């Protein structure tokens, strides 16, 4: 057990809800978000849940939820507060944020907050970049444990079981560290009504990128966003012989 419970910073992103069938804007500039239900990125929910569990075990102390983006990201922070985070920081900007800008802004937040652990989702389900955690660790010069399916804290060490291609890899990291959550780390809770009520009273501080000395302007140019081609209807075959014949002569795969 660490001497004192460590502070955990949990960045949470506001994304199109995972139940929504996304549609590409007519001009191909991106995905339609107007009038679409937005929610917390599911991997970030897992990160919040893990932080709250660490707190319930007594190894984590204060949990600070950070969201970056438009003013409505405060709602995403409220969700984290209802799950058990203690306070929130909103880095408010209308700029389209890319992983590097987010990592720089979080680096500045980390310098102010001095957390012992930054716990974030392995990727966001909107643009699937899978980059912010890694960039953040590099900018901070902290060790990183990505794709975590298990996390334990003991003393100054975080032990992370990682889901890698070949199986599971376990790494030990010196704190402070950056950990990104994979799907199997936990099953996030839904908030209880009393906790939703408490969350309404928890503080959310708003800062601007300029206050943190970061220029969040995008560095990438989106050329085009397009829908995947529509799946063609399948065909039914009457027999194995017909299947083999079609695979050979029409699909030309055998």
């Amino acid at each position: 057990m660490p001497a004192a419970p460590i502070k955990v910073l949990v960045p949470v992103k506001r994304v199109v809800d995972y139940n929504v069938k996304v549609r590409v804007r007519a001009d191909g500039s991106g995905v339609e978000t107007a009038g679409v239900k937005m929610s917390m990125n599911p991997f970030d929910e897992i990160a919040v849940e893990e932080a709250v569990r660490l707190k319930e075990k007594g190894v984590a102390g204060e949990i600070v939820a950070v969201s970056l983006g438009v003013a409505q990201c405060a709602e995403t922070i409220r969700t984290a507060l209802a799950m058990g985070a203690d306070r929130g920081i909103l880095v408010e900007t209308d700029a389209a944020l890319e992983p590097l800008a987010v990592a720089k802004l979080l680096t500045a937040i980390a310098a102010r907050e001095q957390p012992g652990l930054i716990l974030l989702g392995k990727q966001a389900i909107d643009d699937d970049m899978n980059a912010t955690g890694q960039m953040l660790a590099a900018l901070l010069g902290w060790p990183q444990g990505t794709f975590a399916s298990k996390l334990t804290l003991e003393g100054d060490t975080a032990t992370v079981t990682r889901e890698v291609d070949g199986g599971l890899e376990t790494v030990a990291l010196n704190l402070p560290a950056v950990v990104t959550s994979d799907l199997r780390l936990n099953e996030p809770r839904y908030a209880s009504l009393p906790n939703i009520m408490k969350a309404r009273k928890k503080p959310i501080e708003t800062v601007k990128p300029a206050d943190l000395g970061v220029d969040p302007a995008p560095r990438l140019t989106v050329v085009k966003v397009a829908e995947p081609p529509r799946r063609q209807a399948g065909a039914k075959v009457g027999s194995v012989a017909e299947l083999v014949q079609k695979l050979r002569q029409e699909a030309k795969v055998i």
Partner: protein
Amino acid sequence: MDQSLLDKPSHAEIREEVAKLCARFPGEYWRKLDQARGYPTEFVAALTEAGYLAALIPEEYGGAGLPLSAAAAILETIHEAGCNAAACHAQMYIMGTILRHGSAAQKQRYLPKIASGELRLQAFGVTEPTSGTDTTSLRTFARREGDRYIVNGQKVWTSRAEHSDLMLLLARTTPKEQIRSRTEGLSAFIVDMRQALGQGLTIRPIRTMMNHNSTEVFFDNMAVAADNLIGDEGRGFRYILDGMNAERLLIASESIGDAKWFTRRSVDYAKERIVFGRPIGQNQGVQFPIARAYAQMRAAELLVHEGLARFEAGLHCGEQANMAKMLGAEAAWAAAEACVQTHGGFGFAEEYDVERKFREARLYQVAPISTNLVLSYVAEHVLGLPRSY
């Protein structure tokens, strides 16, 4: 589905978290219960543990002390998610009778335990087989004997009696011939069914076309402590009526949720299902019933919100609450009908949940008050036409 300018969405965080809870109780869960006519014990426990059923109980008794619109948001969300709040919604409005008219001792004794889930107040014994809608003609009689009442009679359609610890009972305490006004002579009691079961209380389930845990309840010299009389003897009908507007608005909210569920299912299916080489939703014959039901739902929803706003401002809301209940139930039914038709044969397959929700949604044109009685109310009390019943 945008909200209008008049009408701001309320309790967004509560809706969000209730939806997450409901996601753990998918169609499969309800299908199994429906077949077995089982009670959704786990679902009700989850709602209770998360504090939602105590939303309206004041904080001093361990509840959240939220306004009626929060309860409406909770119930609407449950139905919009394809779940069914009928197993536990009564607690939300029955509790109001104890809160407004119960003694300090009764509130202290029951409300904290209801809030924590230790005691379930889910049974509401009003309807009787011989009087039906004509509540003031009910016959179940509670005779005072020293420090207790002895109850004899029968109730019907008492939902959830087998899954509740307490019942709010309306019984006659003065014979009908001796009263001056129709609304006098009835009294409200809190019956502890755990003690009364087998001691003068018998509960028998009634099988219905949907899974609603309906029962009929028989009282044969059942004793109720005089301490459990709510308020004054003879004024029970008023105490019950007093909670009716809240009940109407909450039931209307469930119907709105049902309508939203059906419409979402209809739209999704109409876009996916390809017949004659194009999505069926491209045909106006398929679109129009769905669109019409949506318009009906939005109109009813606005009326629900107006009713809630008036209720919370302490204004009269009988007109809004009654009309919202009627229009909501009709909108849900229109959306249900469109949903079955849109699904064609698959609308009848249990696996799609449409037929189950269809059966469930039909109830609210009959209970807790039938459409004709809402219209009679509007005709008499809003429009000033002669009383018809």
